[in-house]
């Protein structure tokens, strides 16, 4: 059984020094993502959202902390579990929820759905459904940044399950060889769909793949959003200043199944409960209380998030259906 204690790779005795002002916006993002995912799950069970729906509940600290280390014009490339990353990169809950509903007002006009969020203005390069196939794309965005010398950095997120496929291996090798300003972030949630680490990886430390390429690496626990931000910031700085890529592995856990159709029978209730007790979202709230954020302020923030997500759902419900698909096959 996986537990937060067994999975931990560093001691947890030194919380990152923080202020309310620094932590509050990150908490707000994490909470909004959690509420957005809960609203998505509800709409899915009502048959209003179709297809595959992969929720990121439990892992929010990773995408929020990592993206907080970026400049607005940096790139993010994500997997099919992309709602949290998209929100963290500044995409609105309205556009995302309308997309999940398959509406004309959706982020990509009902053409992509849950797995394929894109936003050029926000530097959000997807939303990719083929495991590992997006790692070279992130390296390519970084290649372009270096080619132009514009100082941009690309973050690429993937699960530990992607570490066994060729797209990851080749993207990693070329990023190292050509010194591309990309940070490769393995969100190790300990299960590639239903297969635990020990049944998919001979060496469970994914970050060690960097060693063969002489690439910088890091590995840490993903339950403290500020720690994620600080550690990713080091890798981002390295990429921006020296073009050196970094392979970062962040240990995390998804509380829900792989997708909505997965009841999660491959792990015990006790295991999930253990991890839920260490919920990064609650941890962040507790930290804000400890730092002296008034209860009334916290409640106001939470009410604000609730209203934002309710508005997004209402927007999606009342938007017109998607109505065109030919204009975007070939660019004239």
């Amino acid at each position, binding site marked *: 059984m996986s537990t937060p204690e067994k999975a931990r790779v560093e001691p947890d005795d030194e919380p990152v020094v923080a202020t309310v002002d620094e932590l509050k916006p990150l908490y707000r993002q994490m909470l909004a993502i959690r509420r957005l995912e809960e609203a998505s799950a509800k709409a899915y069970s009502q048959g209003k959202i179709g297809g595959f729906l992969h929720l990121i509940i439990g892992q929010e600290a990773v995408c929020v902390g990592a993206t907080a280390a970026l400049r607005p014009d940096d*790139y993010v*490339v994500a997997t099919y579990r992309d709602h949290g990353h998209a929100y963290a990169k500044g995409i609105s809950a309205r556009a995302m929820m309308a997309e999940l509903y398959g509406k004309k007002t959706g*982020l*990509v*006009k009902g*053409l*992509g759905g849950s797995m*394929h969020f*894109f*936003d*050029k203005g926000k530097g959000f*390069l*997807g*939303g*990719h*459904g*083929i495991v590992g*196939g*997006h*790692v*070279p*794309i*992130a*390296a*390519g*965005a*970084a*290649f*372009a*940044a270096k*080619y132009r010398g514009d100082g941009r950095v*690309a973050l690429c997120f993937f699960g530990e399950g992607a570490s066994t496929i*060729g*797209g990851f*291996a*080749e*993207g990693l*090798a*070329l990023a190292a*060889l*050509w010194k591309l300003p990309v940070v490769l972030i393995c969100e190790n949630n300990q299960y590639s769909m239903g297969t635990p680490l020990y049944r998919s990886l001979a060496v469970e430390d994914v970050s060690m793949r960097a060693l063969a390429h002489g690439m910088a690496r890091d590995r840490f626990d993903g339950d403290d959003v500020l720690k994620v931000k600080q550690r990713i910031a080091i890798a981002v700085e390295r990429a921006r200043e020296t073009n050196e890529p970094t392979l970062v592995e962040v240990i995390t856990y998804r509380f829900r199944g792989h997708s909505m159709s997965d009841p999660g029978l491959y792990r015990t209730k006790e295991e999930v409960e253990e991890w839920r007790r260490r919920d990064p979202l609650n941890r962040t709230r507790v930290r804000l209380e400890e730092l002296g954020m008034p209860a009334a302020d916290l409640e106001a923030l939470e009410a604000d998030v609730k209203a934002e997500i309710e508005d997004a759902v209402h927007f999606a419900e009342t938007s017109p259906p998607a109505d065109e*698909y030919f*204009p*975007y*096959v*070939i*660019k004239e």
Partner: protein
Amino acid sequence: MAVISYREALNQAMREEMERDESVFIMGEEVGHYQGAYKVTQGLLQRFSSRRVVDTPIAEMGFAGIGVGAAMVGLRPIIEFMTFNFSLVAIDQIVSNAAKMYQMSAGAFHVPIVFRGPSGPAVQVASQHSQALESFYAHVPGLKVVLPSTAYDAKGLLKTAIRDDNPVVFMEGETLYGTTWEVPEQEYLIPLGKGDIKRPGKDVTLVAWSKMVWVCLDAAKALAAEGIEAEVVDPRTLRPLDTEIICDSVKKTGRCVIVEVGWPVAGFGAEVAYQVQRQCMDHLDAPIERVCSDDVPMPYAKNLEDEVQPQVKDVVAAVKRALYLA
């Protein structure tokens, strides 16, 4: 007009487009220091430096994907596959990423990229290096698929492909690099989706692309000796397909023979045949004929290799069937 080789024409196209647009770069195995496995990129490294002529390790999926990512944020990559046989290990990047991105992102990201390299059977390189894969790529919406048969077409089409805002699969005839054709000194572009009559004729329409155009021209010569005038139509691009030029020809001749070096089952010729019967039913005087390679992986021995592929005698025989002379 200068007479230059197909290889030189491609080289000129890339050189001119790289001079014209700083965002164009070339990436692939042996494209730089080695000067290209087939010498198509000869001299480009010296002219444009390793920033824009990028030698890669053997990692087609990786560098094809890097091209897609770079294209998404505004560069115009030319990805060279040493042969299109090796594109199969990168096909996920072409089909799942390059072809889908524009639609999947509702127009937010387009992918102006050219995947190019030699394609089709060469000479005695056996089954894994002798595939004609155009039917695979022509199947996929979001891609353009180009197969030039002459140096003139190669230059004009490649320049257009590089300027196109969509992913273009540009398949060069592996045995055509040394062939020559007249090419004007001044700049010209050939639009994608416009076919060309390679030889006019009134008795039968031969539809062929890439090296099969040459086989058809030889067959037409042999047929002419028997008083049969074949029209050779080269669509030049399979996607988009210039059905108009094909159907106009068939409406004139009443007979159609489609010649491709690919395998028969689900080959692109079947699509051409469908379009022709759909649009020219009242003009057809005989069933449409197809000439393809035999339905086998390519053998090594020269005599067997020749026998597998469409030859002049096969085309002549198909024409005679279409004319009820056989």
